[in-house]
């Protein structure tokens, strides 16, 4: 493998938590270890996460719960409702631990992030092993670490680490024999690559490009012409040239996330409020466009690794009173949550907002984001006082209003307690 340094200096690690939701459930319920466990989507509709044991039973992601529930008892299968408060809190802890290891950090999703790792090859493997041990010790969830010169390759070797238990969750491309890397790349279909979906794969296959090795050997110019600059980058990254920049905006089915590094550090709470307001409103717009509401938001911030200042990587999550796509509520929640975890005067060079617990918004109209307009009329305060007097469901704007079923009305028959976020739900230890 090429030994040129990446665009960011040093190597790139992709760290992700194995079967994240299930692993979170196991932290406070050790009886779930070694048992098949699935986590269900909102309203207990279908399977969104599976333990290894559940995968071995042949249960696929997206399987409706009613299709497997008749067999559950016979299989010893345990189902849990999505507990986004728990997952959000444990995610924030994992990310904070990981942030301590990297020269930079890009939180990519609720359960994975890219880290910049300095050092030579031998140090890198040691660091990767220490990362894995630290997350297990601090939070109690297992992670895999893939290290390479580009994000695409880091993702790829992370999969190698996952599929090869003898690697103990850690794989560095430069430590693997070149012949073995080539052999694996010749065996793995292109769909095994970050960013290559089924449709792209079909068109690639039609050109005779079936495997990762085929795509690596393809002409980047041709790929750009026939497909996109995005796929061209994948080809370049497979050949060791780092060219995928840190992204500001990410989305998949289970989360929406905005994060960015600042050109000049943010030092005051007021500036950070503005950043949060921008991200929250973008999140609101995205959710409106996709017909979704969020029930939990997580905010993160980070200082530079370099220089003399204090280093900190704070994060915090908050459950929204009702799932919402309302820009006012999201802005207020993001701003207030961020204020709880940052200290003014610290120089933050990046920040992010992650929206999870997404669910369909039932086609309700959302408000246009006339945030400042409404804020000037103190409608938010008015709503707050009405709610304080008459209860959470008494009045609301848009998605926050009566038209939406409150979170407590959602079907969560198999929910674990909110162990880390509600005083009344603390885990019980027997004396």
């Amino acid at each position, binding site marked *: 493998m090429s030994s040129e340094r990446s665009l960011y200096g040093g190597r790139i690690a992709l760290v992700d938590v194995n079967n994240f939701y299930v692993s979170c459930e196991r932290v*406070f*319920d*050790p*009886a*779930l*270890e070694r048992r098949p466990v699935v986590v269900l989507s909102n309203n207990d509709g279908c399977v969104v996460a599976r333990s290894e044991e559940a995968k071995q039973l042949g249960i696929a992601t997206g399987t409706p719960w009613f299709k497997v529930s008749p067999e559950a008892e016979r299989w010893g299968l345990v189902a849990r409702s999505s507990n986004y*408060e728990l997952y*959000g*809190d444990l995610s*924030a*802890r994992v990310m*904070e*631990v990981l942030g301590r290891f990297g020269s930079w950090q890009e939180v990519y999703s609720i359960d994975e992030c890219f880290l910049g790792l300095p050092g030579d090859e031998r140090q890198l493997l040691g660091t990767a092993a220490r990362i894995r041990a630290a997350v297990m*010790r*601090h*939070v*109690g969830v297992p992670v895999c670490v893939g290290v390479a010169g580009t994000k695409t390759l880091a993702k790829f070797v992370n999969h190698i680490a996952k599929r090869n238990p003898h690697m103990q969750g850690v794989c560095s491309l430069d430590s693997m024999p070149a012949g073995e890397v080539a052999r694996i790349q010749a065996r793995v279909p292109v769909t095994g690559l970050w960013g290559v979906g089924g449709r792209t794969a079909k068109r690639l296959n039609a050109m005779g490009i079936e495997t990762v090795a085929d795509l690596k050997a393809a002409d980047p110019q041709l790929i750009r012409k026939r497909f996109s600059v995005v796929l061209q980058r994948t080809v370049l990254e497979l050949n060791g040239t780092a060219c995928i920049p840190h992204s500001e905006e990410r989305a998949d089915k289970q989360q929406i996330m905005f994060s960015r590094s600042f050109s000049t550090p943010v030092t005051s*709470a*007021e500036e950070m*409020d503005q950043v949060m307001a921008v991200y929250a409103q973008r999140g609101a717009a995205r959710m409106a466009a996709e017909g979704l509401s969020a029930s*939990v938001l997580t905010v993160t911030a980070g200082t530079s690794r370099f220089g003399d200042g204090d280093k900190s990587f704070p*994060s*915090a*999550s*908050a*459950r929204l*009173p009702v799932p919402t796509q309302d820009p006012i*509520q999201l802005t*207020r*929640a993001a*701003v*207030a*949550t961020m*204020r*709880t*975890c940052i200290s*003014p005067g610290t120089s933050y060079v990046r920040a992010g907002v992650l929206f999870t617990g997404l669910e369909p918004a039932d086609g309700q109209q959302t408000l246009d984001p006339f945030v400042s307009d409404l804020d000037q009329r103190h409608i*938010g*305060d008015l*709503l*707050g*006082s009405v*709610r*304080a007097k008459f209860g*959470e469901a008494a009045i*609301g704007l848009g998605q*926050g209003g009566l038209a939406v079923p409150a979170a407590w009305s959602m079907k969560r028959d198999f929910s674990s307690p*909110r*162990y*880390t*976020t*509600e*005083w009344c739900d*603390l*885990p*019980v*230890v*027997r*004396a």
Partner: protein
Amino acid sequence: MAAAMFGMETPSPSGPGPETNDGGGPGDARGFPSPAQDYFHGGIDLNRHLIRDRTCTFIMRVSGNSMAASGISDGDELIVDRSLPPRDGSVVVAVVNGELIVRRLHLSGGHVSLQTDDGGVPTEVPELADLSIWGVATRCLHHV
């Protein structure tokens, strides 16, 4: 939500907005600057006092009285640090038969056991490697 655990307010629909959640220091007051401004470093913060590292600190509720002589009673809350190395005499949260239990750890001459305070039968662990420690209790929030 790290919020509740670390003593932070969960945002309500109407806020708390910036005006109610600004740390409350005198430096934030409008108008005449307080002469105490330069001396204010925030009030006593229990989180800072009780929590060494928030990524590995969890709070658990005690059920049962077998550790009462150690000052850990039924209904108390324990602050548990997952990253501290358990030592001889540590009060630990251990995983036994898939259940979380609080016990005092005894390590002597290769002999490992988890003991209660009330003379109950200790849980013997054949090998140190078989011991599954969830975390080390650092404080007990005792209800008086």
